[in-house]
């Protein structure tokens, strides 16, 4: 019996292993085919709907003609200006499973990937594609780390924009075509609107939208130089001027909708369009959203957020070449399309952004972008933290957490301390 038992045990053990390996074996023949086998180019973005999706589609159609050997595979992750996507991407990169190419904001955010050794130096591609002269120097500076360039920018957006509904503003006799001169003047207008029966005159949404609003207030109150200093360590976060600005942000928040933590920016914009709110602050991708939602351009006005008339707070989407990516040749072809004049035109006319290249013809672009292109050349350029130009992914996550805490229970001292701590860590 004993011998029989141990023999059977061995047998059953083998059977168990078989069952287990049957589990594993199915890997090799079933499931998602590896992208290296055929010539798929997996492009990771957070452009999943609206004007952003339209822009991506434009880029894809140029890619289809330029890179006939390759097939575009969309790997977009929706939600919150890429906050979901960036987390998923971080996970994929950590797992050693990078897409062929991925979207990253130009600036500090790119450094996250560079420091982690997750993206390759593509300075050579700039020479190959003749891009070193095509982009303005200040943008190239933002992309360059230790003399190397790691991504190709597709566009430039302006963050410090307010979108207003003139019909609503008329209720309090406010001229919707002109921006209030300062944050204080804006607060005065908001007070008038509230008195005129608009319960929540300033529409705002969760997460990064609140971060953008606080940045716009800081920019207006501190001016562009001190504002830039906040992100590179030259301006003290503990300063009294920062406290004063954050207090104004706190006041602004009292004019906003109570469901701000539950909605995203298109809903906030919807509040303006439907007349529930007078203003919303959001980047100029709103222009494309309004077009795709078929909102008449007489129904809304826009201007730089109060007190930031002379500043162009920029952000730029760019594409990278991941280290050990699936199909580097296909990825390079994608990058070529992204940097090309046709690609930038196909993309930006639909996305509502302006081309990163300096040689674009404004006449090809809709009304809003024409004015933005002029501003890009004439205004003071400052970076956006919320959109990765000035802050790393980690800093942004900490700041967003503090913003959501502030939204629930506004405590200026806490918020100010949280900003300081966030910018001290990487």
């Amino acid at each position, binding site marked *: 019996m004993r011998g029989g038992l141990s023999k059977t*045990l061995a047998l059953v053990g083998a059977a168990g292993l078989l069952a287990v390996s049957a*589990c594993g074996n199915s890997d090799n023949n*079933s499931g*998602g085919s590896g992208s290296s086998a055929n010539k798929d180019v997996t492009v990771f973005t957070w452009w999943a709907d609206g004007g952003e999706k339209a822009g991506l589609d434009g880029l894809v159609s140029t890619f289809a003609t330029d890179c006939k050997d390759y097939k575009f595979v969309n790997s977009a992750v929706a*939600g919150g200006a890429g906050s979901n996507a960036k987390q*998923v991407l971080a*996970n994929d990169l950590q797992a050693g499973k990078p897409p062929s190419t991925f979207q990253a904001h130009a600036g500090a955010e790119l450094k996250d990937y560079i420091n982690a050794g997750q993206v390759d130096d593509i300075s050579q591609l700039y020479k190959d594609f003749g891009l070193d002269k095509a982009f303005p120097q200040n943008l190239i500076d933002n992309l360059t780390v230790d003399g190397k360039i790691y991504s190709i920018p597709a566009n430039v957006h302006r963050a410090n924009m307010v979108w207003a509904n003139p019909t609503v503003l008329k209720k309090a006799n406010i001229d919707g075509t002109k921006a209030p001169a300062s944050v204080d003047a804006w607060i005065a207008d908001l007070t008038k609107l509230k008195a005129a029966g608009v319960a929540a005159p300033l529409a705002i949404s969760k997460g990064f939208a609140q971060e953008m609003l606080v940045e716009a207030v800081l920019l207006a109150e501190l001016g562009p130089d001190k504002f830039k200093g906040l992100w590179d360590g030259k301006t003290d976060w503990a300063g009294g001027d920062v406290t004063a600005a954050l207090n104004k942000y706190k006041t602004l928040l009292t004019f906003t909708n109570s469901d701000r933590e539950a909605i995203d920016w*298109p809903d906030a914009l919807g509040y303006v369009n439907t007349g529930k709110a007078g203003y919303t602050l959001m980047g100029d991708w709103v222009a494309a959203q309004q077009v795709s939602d078929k909102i008449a351009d007489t129904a809304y006005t826009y201007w730089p957020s109060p007190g930031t008339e002379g500043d162009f707070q920029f952000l730029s989407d760019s594409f990278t070449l991941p280290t050990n990516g699936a199909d580097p040749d296909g990825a390079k072809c994608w990058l070529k399309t992204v940097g090309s004049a046709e690609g930038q035109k196909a993309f930006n006319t639909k996305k509502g952004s302006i081309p990163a290249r300096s040689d674009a013809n404004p006449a090809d672009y809709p009304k809003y972008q024409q004015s933005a292109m002029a501003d890009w050349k004439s205004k003071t350029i400052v970076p956006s933290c919320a959109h990765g130009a000035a802050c790393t992914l980690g800093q942004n996550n900490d700041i967003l957490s503090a913003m959501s805490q502030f939204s629930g229970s506004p405590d200026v001292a806490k918020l100010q301390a949280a900003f300081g701590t966030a910018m001290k860590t990487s």
Partner: protein
Amino acid sequence: MSADTAAAATGQAAAAIRRKPQKRGVIADGSTRRSRTVRYALLLLFLLFVLIPVYVVLITSFKTSADTTAASQWNLPKTWTLDPWRKAWDVLQPYMVRSLSLAIPAAIISSLIGSMNGFVLARWRFPGANIVFAFILFGMFIPYQAIMLPLRTTFTNLDVTRGVPTLILAHCIYGIPICTLIFRNYYATIVPNEIIESARVDGAGLVQTYLRIILPISISGFVVTLIWQFTSVWNDFLFALFLTQQNNGPVTLGLAALAGGQKVDYAASMAGALITSFPTLIVYILLGRWFIGGLMAGALKG
């Protein structure tokens, strides 16, 4: 009675619930018609509480997007449309296929392993059996966060294809404890010792006993673990989030993407939530009798 006795219920649990109180007269006894009315009123009230979300999800899934405003949220659709369903289906269809091709094999394999383990643990009292049992049991409770990052690295190192295969492997492994537990209790309580003893006398070994005698009478145990595993694999989000991507992940990932966009289409999101839930609901409706048993048996898994 303890953790695994709650689980031991297995198939019997379903039967136990179904067993009506022995004496029909109990209700009349001491309770008046009024108290019976109160009881019914309460039951219906709670029924409403449970069904409220179902109502709003159902009606919303048939609405045009213009009709999903705050003011009309609880009204029936002004015009009924299937568009949200079409839209959600277009997005979710490939995810659904992957979820099916993932949940079915994962459920079968982990059930098989579980039944072999359970048989051995229930019938073979070797020294240290309790320790092995505790060792396996603990695997059921761990928060998967604690193993997720090394697991991801392990799978990358083993070069397991991302997507369905990775998830099958993960669910097979981490499904072993619960399946083992269910079967162990099943064999301990349901299969009479004499059957195994008589098999032993005939000279059949452990494997023979298992194949010839145990497997055929394990059907109801299998139904329980299969349902349980199918449901939990289908509903899993955490493994999917860490181990797969949009283009090779299961339906929970697809739904999160559908409903997580910046411009949320509420009607399509609700239709998507329903589509995602259909397979488990169908399993539940068709095999509800077993499902309750399965839930009881799976008592310990989250």
